[in-house]
């Protein structure tokens, strides 16, 4: 049997030492009526056969490699430098547990300390934890933290309708245990001003996404001051995170908590996971922060070393009084993100962000010249923008697919009033030739009568 080293002779000798008549005897505590149920599973296969099966499944997919991809909406098609997976797949990183024994985990601990430091720089914040499951759960935990910061005295979580719809759904799933309600997104056209008007003494936090789900750059001047004046926290969802290579980070405009989806930082698309919840806050809130933290210290010889610290916030010590129940996080994806930031470095991250920005603006300019299409973003945007199309997006996407183009996100799925509106996404992976192909295809589709 694969992976099992015990031979018949080994098993016999071990049973003899234990003094058990048979292996079955070791399971006598299991109620006999339910013991050893036959499992109706396909029989075991060899490595060769399972790989064949997986390759067969892969043929039933169309991967982004088959397309010119213009789909984003929370998951982004970025380039992953080869050195990164080559290093994250090293067994010493891959097959280690959570670094509870610091003397034999300095590799993981130092790498996570470096991750915390680079992610803090990226978001403009003071402290970043060792990760959450993804951007959406990080946002939900930010809301829970904001309620805790108010000592449970504030009960409203005010959210902008321009936050990723799935993030808002996850937030609503997370909250029933608290006497708290999510408000603000009932009217999908509510403006930032409308939201600010709803701030009151019962508001724990205002959550905004910047750039918004529609790609817009949010006017942030004075925003934090107004939120703070109401005694609430400002939570910023920095999705897509690559935008922080170019744009003013939320820490600079007064955010109290910043969360982001770290997938674009080297993790690949992976059909939605594993991704990376980046969670950043200010030093003054660190004791209310969920998740693991790595800190620097010294050993008995005075040498620099790293440990998990401030663990009294966590479930294994505080149990029902913990700041969150999170235990296993996305450690290896945080390592991946650290590697991506280190590899791209100061100039590289800026360069990727600028490529995304310029390509998106070129594509938007070209599309807006087509008869029947309009770009709806009122002001500037980063790498995503909304196009009003002459026909239902589903029809357009089906036709694009046949031309080897993966079209944008159909906004009508989440915003019923956004009929025929497509959220188009550009990254450094889109060549000018791909963009021109998209524009040409859209032009044809406007001309063909449905």
């Amino acid at each position, binding site marked *: 049997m694969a992976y099992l080293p015990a031979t018949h002779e080994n098993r016999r000798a071990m049973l003899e030492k234990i003094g058990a008549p048979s292996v079955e005897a070791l399971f006598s505590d299991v109620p006999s009526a339910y013991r050893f149920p036959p499992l109706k599973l396909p029989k075991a296969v060899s490595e060769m056969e399972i790989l064949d099966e997986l390759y067969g499944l892969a043929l039933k997919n169309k991967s982004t490699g088959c397309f010119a991809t213009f789909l984003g909406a929370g998951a982004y098609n970025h380039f992953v430098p080869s050195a990164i997976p080559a290093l994250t797949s090293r067994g010493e990183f891959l097959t280690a547990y959570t670094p509870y024994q610091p003397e034999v985990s300095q590799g993981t601990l130092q790498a996570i300390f470096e991750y915390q430091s680079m992610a803090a720089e990226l978001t403009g914040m003071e402290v970043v934890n060792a990760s959450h499951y993804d951007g959406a759960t990080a946002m939900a935990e930010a809301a829970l933290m904001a309620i805790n910061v108010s000592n449970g005295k504030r009960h409203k979580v005010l959210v902008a309708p321009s936050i990723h719809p799935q993030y808002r759904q996850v937030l609503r799933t997370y909250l029933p245990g608290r006497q708290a309600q999510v408000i603000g997104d009932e009217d999908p056209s509510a403006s930032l001003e409308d939201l600010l008007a709803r701030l009151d003494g019962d508001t724990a936090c205002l959550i905004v996404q910047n750039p918004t789900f529609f790609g817009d750059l949010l006017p942030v001047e004075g925003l934090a001051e107004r939120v703070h004046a109401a005694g609430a926290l400002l939570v910023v969802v920095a999705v897509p995170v690559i935008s922080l290579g170019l744009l003013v980070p939320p820490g600079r405009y007064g955010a109290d908590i910043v969360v982001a989806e770290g997938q674009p930082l080297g993790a690949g698309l992976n059909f939605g996971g594993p991704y990376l919840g980046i969670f950043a806050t200010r030093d003054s809130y660190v004791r209310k922060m969920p998740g693991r933290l790595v800190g620097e210290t010294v050993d008995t010889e005075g040498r620099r070393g790293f440990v998990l610290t401030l663990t*009294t916030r966590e479930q294994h*010590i505080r149990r029902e009084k913990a700041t969150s129940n999170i235990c296993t996080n996305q450690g290896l994806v945080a390592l991946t993100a650290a590697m991506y930031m280190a590899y791209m470095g100061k100039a590289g991250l800026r360069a990727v962000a600028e490529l995304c920005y310029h390509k998106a603006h070129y594509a938007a300019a070209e599309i807006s010249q087509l008869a029947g299409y309009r770009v709806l973003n009122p002001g500037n945007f980063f790498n995503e923008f909304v196009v009003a199309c002459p026909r239902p997006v589903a029809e357009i996407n089906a036709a694009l697919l046949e031309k080897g183009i993966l079209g944008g996100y159909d906004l009508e799925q989440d915003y019923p009033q956004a009929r025929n509106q497509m959220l188009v996404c550009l990254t450094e992976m889109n060549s000018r030739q791909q963009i021109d192909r998209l524009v040409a295809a859209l032009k044809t589709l406007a001309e063909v009568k449905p």
Partner: protein
Amino acid sequence: MKIDEKARYTRSHEWVRQEGTLWTYGITDHAQESLSDIVYVELPGVGEPFKQGAALGALESVKAASDLLMPVSGTVREVNEDVASSPEVINSDPFNQGWLLKFEPENPGDWETLLSPADYEALCASEGE
């Protein structure tokens, strides 16, 4: 184990001393020893009222967290800012420099509900068994 003969005690290992109308409050030598190195102190704000037995804050060591309980009902009038920045003084001098806060009791007669030094020593001895 050190003990302050002028103080009264709680079953949760806190001490209280009468100093005029305000009562000073801290944790006992026994408590600091069992917690080991205290790394963080969470204290309430001045003016906050607490009922007897309510959690008013917490002390943390590296591997444990312990709630601070209000010995009798009252209102916080002063907190020791120094212990927040140097929690180690709670370990080194729990009865003096390591005091945590001063409060105004709702009912000064509650003093009699607290343990005498002798009773507290007996409690520690019985817990040690």
